[in-house]
């Protein structure tokens, strides 16, 4: 069942187009991450769903009802704001109970549901505290509980983790995902952190300049990026420019490189993920090491080749492995499987990330 659908959403601010032609269909219980660089229109899109920004054109449909013209209080969305927006003059319990009160839930039931929501976010003991007496992480949980407790048709989160430190962020990320799956909440999540999006979302919507560049599962978006922008934005990648010589053969500089498909004569960019490149004494592409970066579990080698500079990332080899001895200036061979080399049209617009 479709719980949220966005249909050709567009929003202009004077001459700037903040959001343009955004389409999205979300199924019940799905978590979709809106991902993109700063200013790409994520917040504006989310706020159009919540009803705080009126679309210039397009429609917002929640649970089969067209709410494009409905005020925020009549939309049944639960939003977690970036700064949490907890009511400072109310206790934690009052904050969480506010939405229930607005829905005229009887007092006794309200108490039980507040307690249940606080238990879900593991804040049982803090019901009588004021928001100012809570840590950032605890405030964040109150904001979650406040939005969850009313069982909204759509759960909206605008960078809810950006105010937390790295450790807490990783923890809360898992918690939100578990909670969302347990409660079957249809969730639209804004973030500019690709790792956050990849780990949490069922599907990603990658935006740039107000437009959707690609929609798909994390795997689809990572493995089969639609364009150079998406390839560069999700994960890191090597981009080589050249011409397709024959299907499966890509010429960059003096080198013929393996790639998947392609029409002969086509100018294109070859995209290869660093972890898909094998490095060693054998291979198709000779190169010279510029830099070795040891990162513990993985090691990165920056290699200059005739086709261009490439970054290679592999699990750190065993101590006995000769690759452990590779140093700056050493000659190496690189190689990758043809299907790891993805051909994308070589447009410049994709690179302004």
């Amino acid at each position: 069942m479709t719980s949220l659908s966005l249909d050709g959403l567009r929003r202009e601010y004077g001459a700037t187009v903040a959001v343009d032609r955004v389409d999205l269909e979300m199924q019940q219980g799905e978590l979709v991450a809106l991902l993109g660089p700063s200013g790409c229109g994520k917040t504006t899109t989310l706020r159009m769903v919540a009803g705080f920004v009126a679309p210039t054109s397009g429609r917002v449909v929640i649970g089969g009802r067209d709410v494009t013209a409905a005020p925020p209080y009549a939309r049944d969305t639960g939003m977690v704001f970036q700064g949490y927006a907890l009511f400072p003059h109310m206790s934690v319990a009052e904050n969480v109970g506010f939405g229930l009160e607005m829905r005229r839930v009887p007092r006794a039931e309200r108490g039980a549901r507040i307690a249940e929501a606080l238990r879900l976010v593991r804040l049982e003991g803090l019901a009588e505290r004021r928001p100012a007496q809570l840590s950032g992480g605890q405030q964040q949980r109150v904001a979650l509980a406040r939005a969850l407790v009313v069982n909204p048709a759509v759960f909206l989160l605008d960078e809810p983790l950006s105010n937390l430190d790295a450790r807490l962020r990783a923890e809360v990320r898992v918690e939100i995902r578990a909670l969302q799956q347990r409660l079957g909440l249809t969730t639209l999540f804004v973030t500019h952190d690709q790792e956050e999006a990849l780990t949490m979302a069922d599907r990603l919507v990658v935006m740039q300049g107000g437009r959707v560049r690609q929609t798909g599962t994390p795997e689809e978006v990572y493995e089969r990026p639609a364009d150079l922008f998406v390839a560069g934005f999700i994960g890191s990648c090597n981009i080589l420019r050249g011409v397709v010589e024959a299907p499966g053969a890509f010429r960059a500089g003096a080198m013929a490189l393996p790639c998947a498909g392609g029409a002969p004569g086509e100018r294109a960019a070859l995209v290869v993920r660093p972890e898909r490149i094998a490095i060693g004494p054998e291979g198709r592409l000779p190169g010279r090491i510029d830099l070795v970066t040891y990162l513990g579990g993985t090691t990165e080698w920056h290699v200059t080749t005739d086709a261009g500079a490439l970054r290679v990332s592999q699990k750190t080899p065993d101590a006995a492995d000769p690759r452990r001895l590779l140093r700056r200036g050493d000659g190496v061979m690189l190689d990758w499987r043809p299907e790891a080399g993805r051909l994308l049209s070589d447009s410049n617009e994709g690179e302004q990330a």
Partner: protein
Amino acid sequence: MNESGRAAGRPVAALVLPAVVLVLLMMVAPMVLLFRYSLNIFSPTELMIQALTARNYLSAVTDPYYLAVMATTIRMAVLCTLIALAAGFPAAYTLARMRGRWKAWLTLATVFPLMVGNVVRAAGWMTLLGNAGLLNAALKASGLFPDPVQLMYTPMAVALGIVTVVLPYMILTLASVIEGIPRGLEEAALNLGARPLTVFRRVVLPLALPGVVAGSALVFILCMNAYATPILLGGPQFTMMAPAVYDQFVKTTNWPFGAALAFILLAVTLALTLAGRALLQRRRHPA
């Protein structure tokens, strides 16, 4: 600046010293002197006889005339404060939520009336409200009221005059507090299903309460001490405390009694302001 000041207390003390001296000289000294006068005895021939008596206070609080004047003053001050609050809040909210160039212009427009003296402003109201004034001319021209309607020298005229004097103070005080209430709180309430009026009642108003308290106290004090407006717009039949005090000093030259009236006015104003504040703050923290 604040922090370095706290770190080294002495330089800051030196900075406030001139202000302290000025206040002591210009405000506290006259007050002490005035209080001393209020304990003296009035004599029509010698004007003032040194004494230490509460007689002036006693006769003031037992005189039905002055009790009535005080009642009029309090009623008018309460009424004007409430009107200023009701009219000022929407204006302050609009001002506080405004952005950019418009905000600067609107703030200027709010302050602008303060640049006109009270007497000049009252004169303006007179030309508007008088029997031959603009409003009556319009009423007459409309044919509905062939005879002039008494607008001047009514409590309504006084209230109108006072409210327009104090409104900017109320608006600016409220706006400065409302500006500190994040817009996101209102959005959160809307998102949770609260209608705009509920958002106002449950979120904006409680958080703006310090501004309501400060603005009302400021305006109430100004109203209790209104002088020019009640005289010019209220006429001889309508008396408030400040003009009554003035009359004692200048017309009757009864300085001791005038001083006693002044201190009674001060005490009543202070007591009512504190009582009002306590009342509002109790609403904020029930139980």
